């Protein structure tokens, strides 16, 4: 962080020189507060960064005890929980940056550090992106400590351990790797640690950025770690033997390794009866297929293979596209893009305006576009179904990916008909089978086939005595 002129700097026994040293390390920033205190007969300087420490704590736990103390030794009179001493400027600077204050005493080569960070955090709230019907309604926040607390409260095993990392030369972001040691496969944790040890970042702000650096296949569209804001979800994966990465400052917590099918499971599955849960799980997987292939199917059938339609369907499709001036691919692209724009526009607006956009976009544009003869009725139905199907995925990451793959398969369908769709689906499946998430197969338990793990795969496994649930 701050090895000035490249070499390690140490404190000296000269107080003023020490203060000057530290101020230089901070490039003379003005929010580095330097307060003089007199302790016993020694002069001392108290240093902290104004915005990072809680003033009342500094007053209560440091200045007041020092003033009233009769003990000669400074360390003993301080009543702060975490006490350290350090002689290096480097260490001192990093501690000051994480909310400590440093007491420098005349004639001493070591500074006393006391951690008095200011704690500002958001209330624990249900995440907007992962609503569920029944089940716990708490969510992760921005503070790593709170997030760890939420997990620790759910898992009280002593083998639930945490490893701390600091990434980003500029941001110095804390990252916690948590896992249950007795459950997790040691090979997996080695793989993850190896990846984490190789991280060398200038800045780290989001968990996604970290994932992009550490994931095995950097070009795959499929997310190789599940990012969730739900502590119950994270905890259930921890119990299954996965690890969790918490990045300070982001509410999205990474679960790794993960599989494709994990993205189609929801907490709701486990709070409902297993038959109901399994039904919805199957529904979500079908909706993935619909999102990827439905518009492509339509294009392929209309432009290459109308003979596979039953006659009644053929009539109605034929009449609806009779006077549409565009080829079906253009129609589909047009509508898909309109839909994406509508969605994009509605996301960032406050909800009353977003509703208006929904009505204007959905109803007005939808009907007008058909009445103007630009797009066929059937196409509107197809695009609507596709959009709904893609939103059925419990994770937004997967929803977006399935729509994007839909575009690819539309092009393929336009070029080669059903044959093109077959090729695209094959390519997707080959890619999914080959993909690994932190050394573990992504398409498990289908490829490689693990029949003993099939219990909780498409169907939701009912809970039994003597077995671990989920």
């Amino acid at each position, binding site marked *: 962080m701050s090895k000035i002129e490249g070499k390690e700097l140490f404190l000296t026994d000269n107080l003023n020189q020490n203060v000057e040293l530290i101020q230089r390390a901070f490039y003379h920033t003005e929010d580095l507060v330097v307060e003089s205190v007199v302790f016993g007969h020694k002069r001392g300087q108290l240093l902290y960064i104004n915005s990072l420490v809680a003033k009342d704590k500094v007053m209560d736990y440091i200045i007041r005890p020092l003033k009233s103390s009769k003990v000669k030794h400074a360390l003993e009179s301080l009543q702060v929980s975490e006490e350290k001493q350090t002689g290096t400027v480097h260490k001192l600077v990093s501690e000051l940056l994480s909310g400590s204050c440093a007491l420098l005493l005349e004639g001493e080569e070591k500074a006393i550090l006391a951690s008095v960070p200011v704690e500002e955090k958001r209330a624990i709230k249900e995440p907007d992106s992962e609503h569920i019907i029944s089940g716990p309604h708490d969510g992760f926040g921005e503070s790593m400590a709170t997030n760890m607390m939420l997990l620790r409260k759910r898992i009280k095993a002593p083998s639930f351990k945490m490893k701390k990392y600091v990434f980003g030369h500029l941001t110095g972001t804390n990252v916690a790797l948590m896992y249950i040691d007795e459950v997790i496969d040691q090979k997996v944790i080695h793989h993850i640690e190896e990846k984490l040890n190789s991280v060398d970042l200038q800045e780290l702000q989001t968990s996604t950025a970290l994932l992009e650096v550490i994931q095995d296949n950097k070009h795959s569209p499929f997310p190789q770690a599940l990012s969730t804001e739900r502590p119950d979800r994270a905890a259930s994966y921890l119990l299954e033997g996965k690890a969790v990465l918490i990045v300070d400052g982001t509410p999205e917590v990474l679960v790794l390794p993960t599989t494709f099918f994990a993205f189609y499971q929801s907490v709701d599955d486990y709070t409902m009866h297993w038959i109901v849960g399994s039904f919805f799980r199957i529904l979500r997987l079908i909706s993935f297929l619909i999102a990827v292939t439905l518009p492509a199917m339509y294009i392929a059938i209309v432009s290459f293979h109308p003979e596979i339609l039953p006659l009644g369907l053929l009539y109605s499709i034929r*009449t609806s596209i009779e006077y549409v001036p565009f080829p079906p691919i253009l129609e589909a692209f047009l509508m898909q893009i309109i839909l994406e724009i509508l969605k994009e526009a509605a996301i960032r607006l406050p909800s009353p305006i977003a509703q208006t956009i929904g009505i204007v976009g959905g109803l007005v544009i939808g009907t007008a576009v058909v009445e103007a003869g630009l797009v066929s009725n059937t196409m509107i139905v197809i695009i609507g179904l596709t959009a709904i199907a893609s939103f059925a995925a419990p994770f937004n990451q997967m929803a977006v990916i399935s729509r994007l793959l839909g575009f690819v398969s539309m092009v393929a369908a336009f070029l080669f008909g059903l044959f093109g769709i077959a090729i695209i689906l094959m390519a997707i499946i080959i890619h999914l089978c080959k993909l690994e998430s932190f050394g573990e197969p992504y398409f498990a338990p289908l490829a490689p086939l693990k029949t003993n793990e099939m219990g909780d795969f498409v169907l939701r496994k009912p809970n039994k005595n003597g077995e671990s649930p989920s």
Partner: protein
Amino acid sequence: MRKCIFLIISLFLLAGCWDQENLSDRRLINGISFDLSEEDPNLIKGGIRALNIQSQGGGKIEVKDELLTTEGPTTDELGHEIKNYVPGRLDVTKTFIIFIGDELSKEGISPLLESFYRGNLGYLPSKVVVVKGKALEVLSINNDESPIAFRVLNGVRSAEKNTLLPKVTLFTLWNKMGDERMDPVLPLVEKEDDLPKITGLALFDQDKYTGKDLDTKQATLLMLMQDDLGFTGDIFIPYEKNPQKTYRLSIMGLERELNTKVSKDGTFTSTIDLKIKTEINGNPLRDSDLKGLEAHADEVITKRMEEVITILQEVHSDPLGIGMEIASKYPKEWKRLDWEKEYKEMKIKLDVEVDIEKTGGLL
């Protein structure tokens, strides 16, 4: 990598966007008719009904169709000719029914149908129907209005379900048409009071219409002998004491065995063993002597079937596949056999057993 490039390039040799045929550019044909031309017996007169679908808004569809006729020596030339009349590409993928006039079918139907088998666009599940009289007359019923082809098609389909007609499509027809060992039968349609009516079965000798028909009652019996039961099937049998009235037997199950034996002097004898499980479904005279009803039904059905067999032998039509049986069982004898002659003279024995298994609550 090189392999990959090769694969991608070879992709473009397959069907691609240049082969696209947009649905809205196609002219759907739903029925075709073939007749002998009146002016020149060497020519075929072909008719098609091309669909003209129009949306009337609000989800309503108006299906109109137009009739087009032309003359030419072969089916392919007819198709070529007719393209001059219709805009867009002719699409036979939804041609559900092909009508053939009786005069023309006596000359053989396989040259007419051949072009439907070639290429990949022929609709093989479509039905072939023989028309007593001019096929065009049936096809042109209700010109400009709802497609007549569907009316006939639905009639044929429900007749198939009721064991009145065998299930024949272009696909199943092909094998029988060209095979000496087995002959096809086709539904026969007639125009009656401006409406198409299914009147029975046209008997074929290979691909040539023999001119002889079976009525629908006989058709049912033929199908029983062929071991070809539809969804339901009814036989009406006159009472012994009062032949004016009939009782109705619904067929529930069928066991058939066809055995062909050759005697020492080289003559063939076929035996058809039939066990028919029935339910009595109509008994207006309330005859409660089930044994008697069964025995009488045996007798009546055997007699009627014998009539059918006589007709079949007379015109040398073999839909029962006796030739097939002989050819596969006695291949040596088959080779030196004059099947034409042998079939007319051979003995076909019948052994019919009717069981009335259910009587319902009324008897």
